[in-house]
């Protein structure tokens, strides 16, 4: 699967990564190469093989419905760029 410049820009935008125009061709080639390499897996016949979802043979652990966490506001807000009245403050997100 070949990735073009437009797709590179779209992925970058979705991931909020800034990509300069001069980087696009290089990135398109690199990502295409990675995808081609991974696509080799398609050569293996997996018709009757269950998808492997984990390398450990265990069930999804479940937690009891108990309040065991929280009330750590100072720690939660410690790295916030700005705090006001216990809220995170971020640049306006609606026009």
């Amino acid at each position, binding site marked *: 699967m070949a990735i073009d410049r437009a797709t590179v820009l779209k992925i970058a935008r979705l991931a909020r990564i800034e990509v300069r125009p001069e980087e696009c061709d290089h990135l398109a080639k690199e990502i295409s190469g990675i995808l081609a390499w991974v696509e080799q897996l398609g050569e293996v016949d997996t018709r009757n093989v269950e998808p492997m979802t984990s390398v450990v043979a265990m069930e999804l652990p*479940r937690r*009891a*419905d108990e309040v*065991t966490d929280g009330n750590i*506001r100072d720690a*939660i807000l410690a790295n916030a760029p700005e705090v*006001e*009245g216990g*809220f995170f*403050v971020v640049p306006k997100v609606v026009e």
Partner: protein
Amino acid sequence: MSAIVEGRTGPFEMVIGLEVHAQVISKAKLFSGASTAFGAEPNTQVSFIDAGMPGMLPVINGLCVEQAVKTGLALNAQINLVSVFDRKNYFYPDLPLGYQISQFTKPIVGKGIVTIDLPDGSTKDIGITRLHLEMDAGKSIHDIRPDATHVDLNRAGVALMEIVSEPDIRTPEEAGAYVKKLRSLLRYIDTCDGNMDEGSMRCDVNVSVRRPGEGFGTRCEIKNVNSVRFVMRAIEYEAARQVGIIEAGGTIDQETRLFDSQKGETRPMRSKEEAHDYRYFPDPDLLPLRLDPAWVARIKAALPELPDARKERFVRDFGLSPYDASVLVAEKENAAFFETVAKGRDGKMAANWVMTELFGALNKKGLDVTRSPVKAEALGGLIDRIKDNTISGRIAKEVFEIMVETGRDADAIIEEKGLRQVTDTGAIEAEVDKVIAANADKVAQIRAGKEALKGWFVGQVMKATQGKANPAAVNQILDKKLKG
């Protein structure tokens, strides 16, 4: 309102589907041990998992799984014994992880059915496409400062059930009935409190229109409509808007819209370049969720009586009409109140008193049945006094008004005010004789064939006894004496 929108160029039909987000009743969040309680100080109910701190791993809350299964069973739906959690990727300040943990290709609950009750007493089955578990986002507040958005993550990570209906709904009324029925079901089984004011239940409404008999038109999704009334108004506005565009020769763009409840209109929510591409993929932090069929069977066996079964029982055991029964069962508290009143009594009479007098009085006072000044036993006691002829139905309404104001028992009020019905035929006869003696002219008219005047005599006797005379006895005695 009918199923048809009359356009300038002919009729259109609405096609409506709903996505309801119902907050799961649990003490702790879906993947963390922080509290879900409503109304706490901002960011006090947040764990490092909810805040998206690096290196934290989600562990699923077993009760939330149970609540979803319970809800699926109440929706007559297929329970998927294997389901998978996926990451739905998007950036927004109130979603610190950068993705929402949701279920995409393998939800925990599959196809089901909800039977809705319509005002004419009929019912209609609405298909359920699926129910999946996901985490809620935090809350963004845009109006504290003009230049900034404030974020509270207390709600981030609280468990939601997204319940998706098939596009089986055809009118705003059906949509309203669907939301009400869903809310009723969730409250019966205690999996969601159904509190739309606090946002515990939120609706996204999909609306399209088509010429009758045609295939589906292009739909618009109206996000976050937060009351039954608004759901109905948003659909009406949106259907009319779409018909207008089509009749003017335009086409409908598939888009996400917002309902402005103040203006009663919908408008586009996001510019199109922001079109979402969620890049779902299975969450590598979570193994597939496997359910033990025996465990599911135990949950099913422990389900309480649901509104439809209760409605049927009310119709069968108490002789109620299907519509009255559906009104009484909608809120489980109302249903329980009615059952206490009706037990061992005339069911229809009990239903009339509860639905007309009691609900009327509670409405005026803005109370719900759990805070009724008249308890179920007390209302039953009043009905007993009508049945045993201690008071007439008319006097009973007076007694009831006093009960509402004072919270006292019917018997105490009847005694104190001397409202006991006069059934002593001697006393009634004496009053009848007095009225007849004083109105010889009217007696003559009746005997001459003017039967209708009898009502006037009944009224006079009731007036003379302050309404306490037993109406049946008065009629009987009058009949005898007037014939002369």
